């Protein structure tokens, strides 16, 4: 039976709700030889800053139970290379929704990068990362206070005239609803949640942290219930659409996230253990919907 998997985010139609999360899918083209990218509802590109960045020292990854810690630290070629090279190159092979993920170390940097992304023809949605746990004096610092989150939102909204702006939230906060509401009130068009959880591992033989930067962002299947709870809370407190993210690894997880209130669902760490996770999940969705007597996937958004 043909099922309708399509959803809409701020007027932009996605063939299905499945989007690889920022940082877990490069700039898209890295996987173009492995499967047909056009299967994907959207692609959230790797986090981009004003200047090119190498990121943090290695090791940048540590395995955990049902998850992993990463501390890549926003390695990227800079916003100019993103809009002039990465996005046009991806556009040649991908027709779906391209989401540019923007990070910064100051409100000015966020504003400048978002203005450039807003002017880039190939980009459909701008996702503003105020939740990266892997850089100092930036990223998460803006995402852990409602006032700072609102300041960034207002600044980027003042320059984004063409494209919807989603703010990507950190789970490392006392009250994610307060921050979500602050972003909505400041004009955000949507919210992505959650980014990774600040975590750490120690090599007990060497008596030192596994990650060179000591701490990193924990993600993977283990965080799914916590992420789901936050999506549920935020989706029920705000009117703007939510992209749910955190531990999603199966078609059932996608359905659960949408029932909690997500309009689209991002798949993150699972891509690292299974680069074919997104196409496999999308392929499995129609049968799951059939099992549950669901005709159109939109119908399940926030039913719980």
């Amino acid at each position, binding site marked *: 039976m043909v099922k309708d998997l399509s959803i809409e985010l701020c007027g932009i139609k996605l063939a299905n709700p499945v989007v690889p999360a920022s940082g877990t899918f490069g700039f898209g083209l890295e*996987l173009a030889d492995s499967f047909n990218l056009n299967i994907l509802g959207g692609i959230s590109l790797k986090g981009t800053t004003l200047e090119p960045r190498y990121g943090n020292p290695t090791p940048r990854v540590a*395995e955990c139970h049902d998850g992993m810690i990463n501390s890549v630290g926003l390695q990227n070629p800079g916003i100019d290379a993103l809009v002039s090279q990465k996005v046009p190159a991806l556009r040649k092979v991908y027709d779906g929704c391209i989401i540019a993920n923007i990070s910064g170390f100051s409100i000015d940097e966020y504003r400048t990068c978002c203005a450039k992304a807003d002017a880039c023809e190939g980009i459909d949605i701008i996702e503003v990362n105020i939740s990266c746990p892997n850089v100092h004096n930036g990223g998460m610092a803006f995402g852990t206070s409602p006032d700072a989150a609102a300041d960034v939102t207002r600044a980027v909204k003042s320059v984004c005239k063409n494209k919807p702006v989603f703010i990507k939230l950190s789970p490392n906060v006392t009250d994610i609803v307060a921050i979500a509401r602050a972003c909505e009130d400041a004009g955000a068009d949507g919210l992505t949640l959650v980014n990774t959880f600040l975590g750490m591992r120690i090599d007990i033989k060497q008596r030192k942290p596994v990650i060179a930067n000591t701490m990193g962002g924990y993600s993977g299947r283990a965080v799914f219930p916590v992420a789901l709870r936050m999506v549920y809370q935020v989706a029920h407190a705000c009117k703007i659409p939510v992209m749910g993210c955190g531990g999603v690894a199966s078609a059932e997880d996608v359905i659960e996230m949408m029932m909690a209130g997500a309009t689209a669902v991002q798949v993150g760490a699972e891509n690292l253990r299974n680069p074919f996770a997104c196409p496999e999940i999308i392929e499995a969705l129609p049968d799951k919907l059939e099992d549950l007597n669901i005709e159109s996937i939109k119908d399940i958004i926030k039913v719980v």
Partner: protein
Amino acid sequence: MKKQSYTIAENRLVATKTYKLVLEGEGLVDGEFVNLEIPGFYLRRPISVCDAEEGRITLYYKTVGKGTAFLADLPEGSKIGVLTGLGRGFDADACKEEALLVAGGLGAAPLYLLAKKLKAQGKKVNVVLGFNKADEIVLVDEYKALCDSFELATLDGSAGIKGFVTDAISAMKPNYDFFYTCGPMVMMRAVCGALEGSGEASLEERMGCGAGFCYCCSIHTAAGTKRVCKDGPVFKKEDIIW
């Protein structure tokens, strides 16, 4: 990159903490390493390809943690998920006539596939293998059957020349127009420092995806930032910043 299912045909202890793993499946695997799915472990384990024939891959691995210990317990006949077609390997064409291959420990595994390629191209192959102790030695018979000259070194002198691979190279005085090395970083650094001329070394870094899209294993090189899993693991000597 392809996602495939293989069957374990052999998984046997061949030296101290060292296992030979033979996998059977479909097709001829290309790429420098495969990424194995270990049941119950979140990330895959990247392992260099030692030999690849139609429908068959041979790998060597050491039990260094819980994941590889679990792998060692998998019985023959078990299915195992494998990502294939990963990594940029040694450039056999960089050698004109005569090659020097220098391996430390399990670095002997990926260099074996290269040695076969070089011999198939009609080139002379000189091999130096180094191990800590005699009970860690692998692949010596295979190399002896294949290469034109061979030297072995162990750190404690329990087999071959006592000392480092660089000592064995001094003893061998091999001719070569290009060298290849794989082993611990300190050994490769010493080899690249001691040997004249151009060569390649296979670097190691903790990987996330193993396929070039998570950027966890990025390193600085003289040719810019590179991903060990995708742009490497093999890099030109001149490009490596030790």
